């Protein structure tokens, strides 16, 4: 089990809450819902659920509760919940006709920490971020999922494997493939502007 130090205290609480929730204690489950709604929602948004992220999260919590009997706690509540969120997000994609529903948008807001750097650099950085986001959007959803888990959520390979329901080796190869693909997408995009 890979649990970062930061998570350790939380995971202990999660385990106790899961145990009580498993016995039907909805107050205990409330604690888990309160704790994990924001991270789960963020995950759903990053996976492209867009405006439906809240629905995805709610569905995931309901399903998670009903499947608590199957939860074994090997790797904590979060990867388990997130695996259900990922599944729900995938179902959403399948039921959608338009692919542009998968929105990953760079923040419109200004640089949170403006520096004295050259404004030209700032523009370049903004453009670069936009290209990255566009590139991620063009990835296959399975490739996007691993990048989201590994680099946006900072999950370990093992946690990513649990979350996506694939072997650790698959996480490794898929991540590598996604990075290669993203790199080539960025290279192509850069050509017209070069």
């Amino acid at each position, binding site marked *: 089990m890979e649990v970062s130090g930061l998570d350790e205290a939380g995971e202990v609480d999660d385990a106790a809450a899961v145990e*009580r929730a498993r*016995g*039907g*204690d*909805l*107050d205990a*489950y*409330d604690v888990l*819902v*309160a704790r994990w*709604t*924001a991270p*789960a*929602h*963020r995950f759903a*948004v*990053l996976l492209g659920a867009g405006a439906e*992220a*809240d629905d995805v*999260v*709610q569905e995931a*919590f*309901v399903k998670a*509760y*009903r499947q608590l009997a199957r939860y074994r706690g090997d790797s904590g509540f979060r990867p388990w919940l997130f695996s259900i969120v990922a599944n729900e997000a995938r179902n959403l994609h399948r039921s959608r006709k338009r692919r542009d529903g998968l929105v*990953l*948008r*760079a*923040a*419109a807001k200004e640089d*949170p920490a403006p520096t004295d750097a050259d404004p030209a650099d700032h523009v370049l950085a903004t453009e*670069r*971020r936009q290209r*990255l*986001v566009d590139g991620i959007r063009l990835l296959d959803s399975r490739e996007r999922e691993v*990048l989201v888990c590994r*680099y*946006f959520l*900072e999950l370990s390979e093992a946690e990513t494997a649990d979350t996506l329901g694939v072997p650790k080796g698959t996480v*490794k190869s898929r*991540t*590598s493939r996604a*990075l290669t693909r*993203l*790199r080539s997408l960025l290279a192509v995009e850069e050509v017209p502007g070069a």
Partner: protein
Amino acid sequence: MPDDDPLIAELRALDAWLDVPPAADQRAAVRARLAPRRRARWIVAGLAALVGAVGVVAPARAAVVEAVGDVLRVVGIEVRQDRTPGALPATPSPLPGVRIARLDEAKRAALFPVRVPAALGVPDEVKLADPDPAGAPRVVTMTFRGGAVRLDQFDGTISPMFLKASGGSAEWTDVKGEAAIWVAGPHSVRYVDRQGSERTETGRLAAPTLIWSGGVVTYRLEGLATLAEARAAASDLR
């Protein structure tokens, strides 16, 4: 795929630039979707024992369904999963201090309001059981229709008195909007008296039973064949 890959560093840095709207609070919605389903599930799972908990029942009964461990509580009624079958003991032991009383006498002696289901008419017999030192009974039992129908009522404010039933299938229902449990099949019934001893009053399995709670009193109505009939009787206590 080394971690010092500049693209990975870029991705990690990008995270702060992604526009993620605030999440909606899901607690109420999730709970609302889970509570009724959960109740149904308990029953489907095969309820084995019912415990009419008469212990801590607050006067202000928020009609909430609460479940802790393998015990489900609804306003003073506890439902417990029991692995052991509801076997009957070889020798039944009656409730302590049982005495026959008149209805008006029962109403005076009990510390809780004693009521009669209007649908069942005048009770054939009224019994008081398990009295406190001052003589106030914990349980008032009435029989109707030549003994075929039995109503137990007991004070929900004194502790700890239990009624246990094992076996049979049960389902949630309600009596005037308050949660109630209907045990359709035969089941054994045991009382836990003031001293904590379990007593099985009769050597037979109980007939269909409705258990519910009204005001400070918990009721157990046995012997009406259908839920509709039992609910109707339970809804009109006088």
